[in-house]
């Protein structure tokens, strides 16, 4: 498999900076569950979560550097397993977008390509507090009973 290079080009950074300056309102807090570089180099049979952590962290650090309204908290999945448990995170890299007291918007893996665009749109939506959904959809969702767990499987494009 081709190794992904999550570099944010200078021109992309500059476009993002302008867009975030214009469109972000409230602060948005991002929590990244990752592991140390040393742990990333360690091969543990059966452990899936050892890849892409470093790249994901680099990508997010570059992303939050484009706006002072974006904050990044980094949690070591292995050393701070109590925090991972509290958040219900079972694999890494995991990105949690914090909305008020909720932690229910998540990415597992590295948000590249189309998923990076989704992440940017998510940040703007959360910051502005306005969803793009149809009013009827929002009404139906608000009345919804019981826990729902949606998993969308994607690949970078």
């Amino acid at each position, binding site marked *: 498999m081709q190794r992904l290079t999550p570099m944010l080009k200078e021109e992309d950074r500059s476009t993002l900076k302008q867009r975030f300056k214009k469109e972000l309102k409230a602060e948005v807090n991002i929590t990244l569950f990752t592991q140390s570089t040393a742990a990333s180099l360690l091969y543990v049979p059966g452990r899936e979560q050892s890849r892409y952590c470093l790249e994901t962290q680099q990508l997010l650090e570059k992303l939050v550097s484009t706006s002072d309204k974006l904050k990044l908290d980094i949690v070591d999945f292995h050393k701070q397993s109590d925090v991972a448990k509290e958040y219900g995170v079972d694999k890494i890299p995991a990105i949690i977008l914090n909305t008020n007291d909720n932690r*229910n918007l998540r990415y597992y893996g*590295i948000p590249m390509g189309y998923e990076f665009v989704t992440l940017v749109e998510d940040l703007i939506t959360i910051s502005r507090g306005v969803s793009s959904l149809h009013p009827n959809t929002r009404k139906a969702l608000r009345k919804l*009973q019981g826990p*729902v*767990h*949606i998993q*969308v*499987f*994607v690949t970078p494009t």
Partner: protein
Amino acid sequence: MARLAHAMALENSGITADVVGAQEFPQLAQKLLITSVPRTLINERVQIKGVVEEQEFLNKVLEAVGQKPAVAL
């Protein structure tokens, strides 16, 4: 699908929406029989293959919790 799922989770804190990289987590994808992407699983019971409109997505979510489909938008 990822954006729709996250938008839904924003409306109701009882909804957790995970966007999962199938390449990064091949064992999980294999376990859940993910053979193509995008693939959406709701409560690991109802699934959506490919991309659908907001209304159909909503109805699948309602189906997963045993509720009737919503009226058309």
